[in-house]
């Protein structure tokens, strides 16, 4: 029979705890209790803030930027969960999550044409159009943040810096540095040729062709072999509003023989 162990063990534990507390260390479970209390206080502070300034966040893109940056500085992600306080009380969650849905839908709708690559400008334009004129204003910063959140769903959402802005990628096509640099080169005219790549980037023909073939395969580039001079590789994602427009069904039926 193990007599005394039980009582002795409890006593030892109590002694250890007492010593621990003496040294000013707080036990984790006590801290959790403390956190619970602090959370309640914080929640009511946030409620008060929301009652005064919720509108500011909804209406003012600049203020949203400030808010997001402050959160990032202290290590808080207000968009992590729809169940978070920030989301519930300030309504930031619904704003960005809905934006995420709209972004996905725009990208899906255009994928057949641009292979899953779209300029941030065009995305912005189409999202605004889809939201209608009575909806809240949405800035490009808002889009960028929404896209960052979408990334966790593993669908290949990414942003490629090009010509001062970004290309938004919505398919998991593998694009390395070489591909990116060619996209950037193509940005000015919407297309690029092998010679241009050789001249500007000082690559060999093989490297240029390899990259262009990959873009073709992924559906990000279209080949125009009938152009005067050498073949041109066009990027639908970079087609500007000026040189392209959506065709109505009537026009389409007129064009097909």
């Amino acid at each position, binding site marked *: 029979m193990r007599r005394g162990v039980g009582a002795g063990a409890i006593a030892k534990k109590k002694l250890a705890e007492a010593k*621990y507390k003496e040294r000013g*260390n707080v*036990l*984790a*479970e*006590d*801290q*959790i209790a403390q*956190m*619970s209390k*602090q*959370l309640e206080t*914080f929640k009511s*502070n946030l409620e008060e*803030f929301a009652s*005064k*300034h919720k509108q*500011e966040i909804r209406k003012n893109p600049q*203020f949203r930027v*400030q*808010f997001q940056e*402050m*959160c990032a*500085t*202290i*290590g*808080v*992600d*207000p*968009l*992590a*969960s*729809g*169940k*978070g*306080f920030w*989301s519930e009380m300030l309504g930031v*969650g*619904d704003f960005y*999550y*809905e934006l995420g*849905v709209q972004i*996905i*839908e725009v990208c*899906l709708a255009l994928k*057949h044409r641009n292979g899953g690559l779209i300029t941030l400008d065009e995305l912005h334009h189409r999202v605004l159009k889809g939201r209608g004129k009575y909806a809240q204003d949405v800035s490009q910063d808002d889009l960028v943040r929404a896209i960052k*959140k*979408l*990334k*966790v*769903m*593993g*669908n*290949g959402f990414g942003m490629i810096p090009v010509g001062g802005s970004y290309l938004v990628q919505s*398919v*998991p096509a593998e694009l390395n540095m070489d591909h990116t640099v060619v996209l950037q080169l193509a940005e000015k005219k919407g297309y690029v040729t092998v010679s241009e790549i050789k001249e500007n980037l000082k690559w060999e023909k093989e490297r240029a062709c390899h990259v262009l*073939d990959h873009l*073709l*395969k992924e*559906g990000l580039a279209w080949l125009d072999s009938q152009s005067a001079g050498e073949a041109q590789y066009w990027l639908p994602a970079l087609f500007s509003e000026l040189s392209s427009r959506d065709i109505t069904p009537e026009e389409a039926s007129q064009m097909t023989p």
Partner: protein
Amino acid sequence: MDRFSWANGLLEINETLVIQQRGVRLYDGDDKSKLDVGVALLSTHRLIWRDIKNHECCLSMPLSQIIFFEEQAAGIGKSAKIVIHLHPPSANKEPGPYQHSKYSYIKLSFKEHGQIEFYRRLTEEITQRRWENTSVSQSISPGVSSQVGRFTRAVGIVGIERKIEEKRKETDKNITEAFEDLSKLMVKAKEMVELSKSIANKIKDKQGDITEDETIRFKSYLLSMGIANPVTRETHGSGTHYHMQLAKQLGDMLQAPLEEQGGMMALTEVYCLVNRARGMELLSPEDLLNACKIFESLKFPLRLRVFDSGVMVVQLQSHSEEEMIASALDNVTEKGSLTAEEFVFTEIDSGNSFSLHLIHTCRDLLSFLLCRLLLAEKMGHLCRDDSVEGLRFYPNLF
């Protein structure tokens, strides 16, 4: 408030009462005046205010003094108001309650409501300017009024510009205040972050006795605050109660759509489907991901699956890996060789229930079926022919 003159409150001949409203308080600019319990009367010629208790106390102002006016919505503990911007007082103005004011505007505060109708009538009168047609003995002499008329336009624009400037300052003030309040809030939030880090460290070092319950509670606190979970030791088996609930909801909700779509849907598609259905209190991408991760532990017939390409799908359990490989191999063998695109058409032809929706977004279907082909390739059953014309799969005869 220095535009008002003492009056006896009697209407002149040709002057008609348009509307009156009780419970109106006067403001000199932003400051409350002592004239706080009264009746505001609007006539065709003047704006009159009379104290409810002391009828002797009565003031009026010609409507021609008004440059323009606007509504100020009610707030918590604040009545709705009409802000009226005024021309400078004319030289021969009769004395009134204020000799001088630093403001060029007044406010009427409607403590017993009625501002909407009053505003409407005031708008009508200012538009019609009936006081110009009918001369009233006590009013400003015709010479002066025409002078006032000529200046009105220029002063009006200046007045409007002034108002825009004030509004901008007001907005700036609001933003500054919001920003200050936000900063204070962030300080408190930072304390919470520090505390949670300390707790997480302790959990890691196993100091103290944390029960399973307390751990779950802690996780839910982190979720509420948006603090990343620094404790990695526990599996995703428990998650938080929120995620478990969510997983159950999703399990119910996704059965039908998944069956319709051939057993598989991209996580992004699920995200759109679920959030569109909810309308509000939307899920974050992370909420969805975390809920899907625990399907297996909750013994649901759904799985989250991540392909090599990074594509994430939710899949009905009936679609096991072997089945997928077998069907891919069958199809390729039958046709001799197959690209992903062709695979799509055979699947459709064979009557597998792919909805029209998917046919329109063929590329999605493509990537799933491509995944199947790739999987079969990985297992050694197929080999590829990669060219610019596309990726074609052949049965592996090697």
